[in-house]
């Protein structure tokens, strides 16, 4: 099985989610399993499928700051995707390429990130269900879904982190303890830059190595037959209030 790897590229939030969906459809139709690296331009907030938009996101603040907000089709939590502060990946393939057990498949895919970080000299470990931690602090969050026989997992690796900005855009359930909560999140989150001085290019190289280890692959790009449907999916789903305010 030959994998396709799509090198890092930036898109808007709606298009990023739509591309993951369009590639899942092309994989379901027999297309190559695909690993894609991407960034968010402009910076954006994504929320999990089951989260309440209103409860999780300060929509006024996001609008004021030009930060897009999108609901993912995967579960999990709210994420602030800073344009220069993180790198996102998606891995999409037929379910039989991965362990049937969900936790085992998280462990396998998150293992690629652990390997990549090790290449950069950062020791990390998978923390079930869906996190990767360095010395107990979170450096990567991941979310998976399976449908139509296709597994999609996407996740984010923090390159540099600005917790204050993150919490100016995300809501805290109890405003009275906001300061305390931000302080405690600062204690519990880390980034590549806080661990090592490395360039983004080197991180991307390490991720390419980690994700393709033991795989036959070629560097490729999105096909027209994926990009065009993705543009339509962005319009018909991810840009729409009906989708984003669904819960």
């Amino acid at each position: 099985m030959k994998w396709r790897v799509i090198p890092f590229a930036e898109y808007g939030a709606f298009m990023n989610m739509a591309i993951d969906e369009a590639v899942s459809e092309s994989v379901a139709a027999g297309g190559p399993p695909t690993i894609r690296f991407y960034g968010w331009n402009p910076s954006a907030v994504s929320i999990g499928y089951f989260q309440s938009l209103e409860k999780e996101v300060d929509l006024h603040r996001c609008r004021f700051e030009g930060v897009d907000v999108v609901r993912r089709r995967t579960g999990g939590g709210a994420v602030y995707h800073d344009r220069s502060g993180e790198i996102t990946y998606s891995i999409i393939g037929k379910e039989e390429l991965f362990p049937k057990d969900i936790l085992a498949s998280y462990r396998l895919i998150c293992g690629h990130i652990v390997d990549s970080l090790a290449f950069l000299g950062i020791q990390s470990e998978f923390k079930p269900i869906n996190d990767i931690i360095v010395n107990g602090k979170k450096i990567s969050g991941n979310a998976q879904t399976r449908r139509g026989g296709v597994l999609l997992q996407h996740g984010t690796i923090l390159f540099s982190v600005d917790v204050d900005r993150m919490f100016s855009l995300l809501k805290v359930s109890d405003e009275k303890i906001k300061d305390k909560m931000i302080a405690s999140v600062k204690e519990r989150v880390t980034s590549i830059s806080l661990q090592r001085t490395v360039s983004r290019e080197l991180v991307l190289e390490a991720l390419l190595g980690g994700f393709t280890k033991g795989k036959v692959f070629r560097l490729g790009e999105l096909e027209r037959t994926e990009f065009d449907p993705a543009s339509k999916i962005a319009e018909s789903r991810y840009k729409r209030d009906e989708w984003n305010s669904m819960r």
Partner: protein
Amino acid sequence: MKCEEKIPGGKLVCIDVQISGGKASAVKITGDFFLHPEEAIEKIERSLLGLSIDASESEISSKIKRSLEHQGAQLIGASPEDLARIFKKAVS
């Protein structure tokens, strides 16, 4: 009426229940858990409609289990028993 709980070793679940005439008339389950396929949540919520506020946790969890089984759905980061406990707390 609402109850939110972070499940130890699992995820955050919030269940919002509206009650009319001693029965659940609207149910919304939100949080950062996982469920494959995601759309299964709507039928799970619907399966709890009409439940009496006196329903036992085992009655509630068996409704959730049945809905998951019917849909071939898998819940990750919370169990049907967790959801039943949170539902029960929400209506109590």
